[in-house]
């Protein structure tokens, strides 16, 4: 649960950093533009979440999966993000898998991690 209202917003500084990396060097960004982008990003999180949970509901499942997020992109017509997301997911799985192997020796710490089992 969010304790403070600010917890429901993405941090302005971090969003600004992402924006700066996206734009050419030396671009100035007004304060209002920064807060606007941060707000947009926060709302986007909810928008994607709701699209993904719709898919979960329609399939009469309970848990939200990565695949649901990918499929949600098509539903909200952000298909252009699907390919880069898939790549990111592939990479993520590999890292998660490597991590699991590394820590697997010590303990079977299963904190509902349902990560890559293949590869």
């Amino acid at each position, binding site marked *: *649960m*969010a*304790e403070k209202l*600010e*917890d*429901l*917003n*993405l*941090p302005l500084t*971090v*969003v600004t950093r*992402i*924006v700066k990396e*996206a*734009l*050419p060097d030396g*671009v*100035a*960004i*007004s304060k*209002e*533009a920064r807060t*606007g*982008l941060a*707000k*947009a*990003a*926060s*709302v986007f*999180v*909810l*928008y*994607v*979440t*709701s699209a*993904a*949970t719709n898919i979960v*509901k329609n399939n009469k499942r309970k*848990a*939200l*999966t*990565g695949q*649901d*997020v990918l499929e949600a992109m098509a539903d909200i017509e*952000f298909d*252009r*993000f699907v390919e*880069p*997301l898939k790549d*990111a*997911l592939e*990479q*993520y799985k590999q*890292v998660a898998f*490597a*991590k699991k192997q590394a820590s697997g020796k010590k303990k079977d710490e299963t904190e*509902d*991690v*349902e*990560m890559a089992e293949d590869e």
Partner: protein
Amino acid sequence: MATPKAEKDLHLPLSRVKTIMKSSPEVDAVGPEPLYLVTKVTELFVTDLAKRAYKNSEKNFLEYKHIAEVVQQDDTLDFLREIMPRKITVRQFKEMMAKKAAKANDSDETSEESSEEESSDESSSGNSNSNQENKS
């Protein structure tokens, strides 16, 4: 083996994204994989929106209106329209109202005490209500 750190390519804090996701009543648990993807796609989204807004800008200065312009023009960004309205000046607002009034033809109650339509967006989120703040 040099482990590539996938999570390191993220900027946004996963914990915050998780909090936002969980604020949706339909979400109770968020696994690491969907969390990673939502975070990642949000970063893609911000990058994309900023780049497109930048195309509307001039003199290397990105302003709110450039973003609002993108939002108003792209139907897939409909979900942002309420939080990112086009802003107009008091003058434009008055002109709009004047036109409206002209149309509605002399129903003379419309005075011109312009409601300030500059909407200074800094609606402070200082939740000052002394509710019971239960910290868990």
